[in-house]
């Protein structure tokens, strides 16, 4: 089922990507082609098959809740695009 242009705009919004009007048709075609490949999955019955999330079926390992890393704020913020008084600066969020 090919995607509609509006669907692609919505997917791009959900993914926080800006797609130019001039490119939206091309993305729609390409994504539709990829989705067409997925149709093949429908031909196999998977009733009762447990989904596989990890090749060894391992579960998330837990660790004791103790501090084991030191604060490296200055090092991490040195590579941030926009810092002021040790804070990450973004456009105004609350009106």
């Amino acid at each position, binding site marked *: 089922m090919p995607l509609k242009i509006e669907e692609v705009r919505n997917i791009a919004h959900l*993914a926080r990507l800006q797609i130019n009007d001039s490119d939206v048709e091309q993305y729609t075609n390409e994504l539709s082609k990829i989705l067409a490949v997925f149709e*093949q999955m429908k031909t196999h019955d998977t009733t009762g098959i447990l989904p596989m*999330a990890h090749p060894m079926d391992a579960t998330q390992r837990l660790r004791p809740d103790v501090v084991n890393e030191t604060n490296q704020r200055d090092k991490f913020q040195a590579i941030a695009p926009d810092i002021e008084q040790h804070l990450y600066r*973004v456009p105004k969020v609350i009106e």
Partner: protein
Amino acid sequence: MTTTIKQLQQGLAEKQFSSVEITQDYLNKISQQNAEINCFISVTDELALQQAVDADTALANGTGSVLTGIPIAHKDIFCTDGVKTSCGSKMLDNFIAPYNATVIEKFNQLGAVMLGKTNLDEFAMGSSNENSYYGSVANPWDRSRVPGGSSGGSAAAVAARLAPGATGTDTGGSIRQPAALCGITGIKPTYGRVSRYGIVAFGSSLEQAGPFAHTAEDCALLLQSMSGFDPRDSTSVDQPVPNFSDNLNNGIAGLKIGLPKEFFADGLDADVAKVIESAIAEFRKLGAEIVDISLPNMDLSIPVYYVVAPAECSSNLSRMDGVRFGHQCENPVDLEDLYKRSRSEGFGDEVKRRIMIGTYALSAGYYDAYYLKAQQLRRLIKQDYVKAFEQVDVILCPTTPEVAFKHGEKTDDPVNMYLQDIYTLSLNLAGLPGMSIPAGFSQAMPVGLQLIGNYFEESRILNAAHKFQQATDWHLQAPEVK
């Protein structure tokens, strides 16, 4: 002329040369050839020479290890403290990693020398290295052709003899496919064998790091250095690591090698098939028993992979928000504009396509039909292998359906590009180890042979590969230096 890591080790031990001398020699070759091959994004020459000086001191004091003073190139996906880690993306063009990946830390502790960071498809998404922000990489055998991807820079660097070994990551074939297309040896270990800590994440349930080198013997050595449980990686598996070099020389008489009929069917280039058949004959001569097997669900690996990998990528790449690190757009009007423009300017086309596919597959109303279904089918793919390994010790097939293709040949058709990985993807879905070794030539281009092992049985495929390399010299063939 092929110089292996083993030979460099011997030379260093016997004081035929120093680490500074060989490091300088590789750096000279890189500076002469990198402009054309474009396999390095960053050459860390000052750091390399400093590490080489330290290595020579350690060797002189008798405190060296097996890799002390050996120059290595690292895929630019491993975080390297204080060194640009771009992941082939404009998004991370200004990203100086603030810490080392565990793999890098391990090489540093062993005294290895880092020559530089190699080119790759952006965020490891691609099979031709044409998706890099830093330009495509030339295949050293024929510069009009691609080196494969995503670890195309690492494979090309080793093939061009600009490094004796290199690291890569493999999410769907990204070590094995470029190794095949560049005529070198590369291994992807079992999922969980090598720490993923500090590797820029793309497909968390699929990817593993591994080495490239000229020989299986060198790969065993490099993989040894990379492997081991790491509490900092929640996907790391706590399994003992055997000495991968111990069994290399064992005879392989009686080794049961399975040939899955699905990997020798339509779509396989006839010339490539001939090369693989000669290699099978060679294994027979070495005493291996060849068994026909079937992996009936392999036709599903392309759709399943291209649901699961993009789903994981859309989630992993959501951290690239233009706020904490990486590219930020100019003069954002509001937060949404900041996110959207930073991401759209920072990511290339293939990355955007995969993020959108993944977002769609995970979105409300489609989750069951795509993601859940794919994860169920993934189990069928794994079960095929589990059953096969009840019958055989090792599985053999071509690594790729054809030899390296021309630049631009497949860029207009993403689905056609995805077919490149048809023989490699299923191992990542199942989490199995696999390697590619040179098996001959077609159209004067190298052909790769894939050996697949059971879980945590890297030693077995390394052994089979080593015995093959003792009997053949395909792995020692080098492209002409232009």
